[in-house]
């Protein structure tokens, strides 16, 4: 396997690219439990981490994996886990703990068909809403979704950057096809992609508050053992981390969790579009599905249909304003997903009045191919 720091053109699998992206980001701890179709990420990390002075641990289940990466991140290492639907469900309580205690970490969910054990070796996109609303309670979430092998690398780096920058868990939503697809990519050179690390406190320990509400809402983070002795709890807490039942402090904490992300919406939203300026019909899709959607849009253009593509790369927060702008002149938007209709409801929520929302869904473990989408464009245009 190539090292992460060469600019060589190499044939790489999506899951491998994700592991290399993690190493590039400075991820030095991985805790995981094997599950198809994500296992190559764990295997790659087991092989690479010790070479980079990092640590890999195979835990007894995904609940333990999530707990271990939160512990390791609290102790100062950039940390990651990777899984698929069943494991992602098991992780939810501890992901909620990471939201609450503001511990950065990255969770990769290589989606399969569901529910339950579902289709271990087939594709699905039915965890789109779970990635936003999985853990109980109120919080805000950042979720990114690559659509190529090179993007698996880049978006893993982005996921780490967002998690470190905003002190929050970030989910990377992949899928079975993308995870196992091989493409020739140019591996980013060292320094080519921005790598962000959490801000550390620069005050004496007596003044340090682990959950201080700063002007930009994100608190500097000391690692366990750095000499700042603090308390961390999933109970609602004050700025020092101690449990609180004071109404004002409860609200302040929850506001912080929400606004530290929503306020930086412009920094977090990533969206890829094609030919939307004059489009009368826009196709909106993410991940593997967006690849087929792109081709369908080109097929439509050849038939002189003014079609355009909207591909959210940041899925959550949902790119309300950006998408609305791209729909400014469209009469129709066709939302294509490998589920029974999840993002389509977000699009309905934000679509301008003049723009009718249509949907195309598949949920039998197969991909939607360009012809399927093209036909739907013809039908609804």
């Amino acid at each position: 396997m190539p090292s992460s720091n060469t600019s060589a053109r190499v044939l790489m699998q999506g899951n491998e690219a994700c592991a290399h992206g993690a190493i590039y980001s400075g991820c030095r701890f991985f805790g995981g439990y094997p599950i198809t179709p994500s296992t190559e990420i764990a295997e790659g990390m087991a092989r690479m981490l010790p070479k980079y002075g990092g640590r890999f641990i195979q835990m007894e289940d995904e609940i333990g994996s999530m707990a271990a990466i939160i512990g390791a991140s609290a102790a100062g290492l950039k940390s990651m886990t990777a899984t698929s639907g069943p494991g992602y469900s098991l992780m939810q309580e501890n992901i909620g703990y990471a939201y609450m205690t503001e511990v950065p970490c990255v969770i990769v969910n290589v989606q399969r068909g569901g529910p339950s054990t579902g289709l271990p070796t087939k594709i699905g996109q039915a965890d789109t809403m779970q990635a936003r609303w999985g853990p109980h309670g109120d919080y805000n979430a950042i979720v990114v979704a690559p659509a190529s092998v090179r993007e698996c690398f880049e978006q893993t780096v982005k996921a780490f950057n967002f998690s470190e920058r905003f002190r929050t868990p970030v989910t990377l939503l992949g899928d079975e096809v993308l995870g196992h697809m091989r493409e020739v990519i140019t591996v980013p050179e060292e320094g080519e992609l921005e790598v962000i690390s959490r801000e550390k406190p620069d005050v004496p320990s007596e003044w340090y508050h682990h959950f201080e509400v700063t002007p930009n809402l994100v608190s500097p983070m000391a690692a366990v053992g750095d000499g700042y002795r603090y308390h961390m709890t999933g109970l609602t807490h004050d700025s020092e981390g101690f449990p609180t039942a004071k109404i004002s402090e409860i609200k302040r904490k929850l506001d912080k969790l929400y606004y530290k992300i929503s306020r930086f919406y412009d920094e977090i939203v990533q969206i890829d579009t094609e030919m939307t300026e004059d489009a009368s019909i826009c196709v909106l899709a993410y991940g593997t599905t967006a690849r087929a959607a792109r081709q369908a849009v080109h097929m439509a253009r050849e038939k002189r249909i003014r079609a355009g593509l909207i591909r959210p790369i940041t899925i959550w927060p949902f790119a309300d304003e950006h998408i609305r702008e791209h729909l400014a002149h469209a009469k129709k938007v066709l939302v294509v997903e490998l589920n029974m209709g999840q993002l389509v409801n977000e699009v309905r929520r934000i679509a301008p009045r003049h723009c009718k929302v249509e949907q195309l869904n598949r949920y039998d473990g197969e991909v939607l191919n360009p012809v399927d989408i093209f036909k739907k464009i013809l039908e609804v245009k």
Partner: protein
Amino acid sequence: MVEATKPEDKQTSDVTHQYLRTKKNFPNVWCPGCGIGTVMGSIIRSIDKLGYKKNEVVLVSGIGCSSRLPVYCDFNTLHTTHGRSIAFASGVKVAKPNLKVIVVTGDGDCLAIGGNHFIHACRRNIDLTVILINNQIYGMTGGQCSPATPNLAYATTAPYGNLEHNFIPVDLAKGAGASYIARSTVYHVQQMDKMIVGALQKKGFSLVEAISNCHTYYGRLNKEGDAVAMLKWMKEHAMSAKVAKNLPPEKLEGKFLTGLLWDVEKPEFCEEYEKLIQRLQK
């Protein structure tokens, strides 16, 4: 705040006091007479005895009355999710092996919802010290049955007596491969101090089972009396493993063994991983 030195001539309460977060968090949540506070004192004295710096000590707990212990102590403290403390602690320790990582857990937290993490941690042999506060019931949620509730004992979810059978945590740990196993009670405080000191010094996975009283629920539901009566029961039924070795079986009838029960050497995970890194980076 000053780092604790070893004040031989001071009262134990003075020693303890230096390690408490006195400005916040008190009064504590525990019922008067609850044994958990005694375990807290024992943990603090052991750390003080070994001269560990506050900054290098990490207390990790799950959820329960016993898991509330860390918040009162001036160390690095992580109060995590129910049953998962050992998995969190594993992440902390593997990431920063120079830290002294101590897990504080209850019988429900450790043996029911956390049972899987517990046995795997025994087997994996990461250098953690687990203090299992066993009060034989779920205290925090109001007296429900736990995996340590004896057969036929009463709990709010076993109103006609417990039909199940309890774990013996020290035997479970031994079967699962722990390196160091000890047991004591909140009556035998000096012995408990010694066992915790031993566990902290051990390189490898250590378990100290601290038998404690939940008079509020276990005592009341099983007519075992108040805190004092339950401590008396511990005094009368505990038998030092050292003493027991030389006694005929009939003298051990109805007793449970305390003290150091198991101590073996095996390679520790973090040390082995460090060796692997050195080998691969050569």
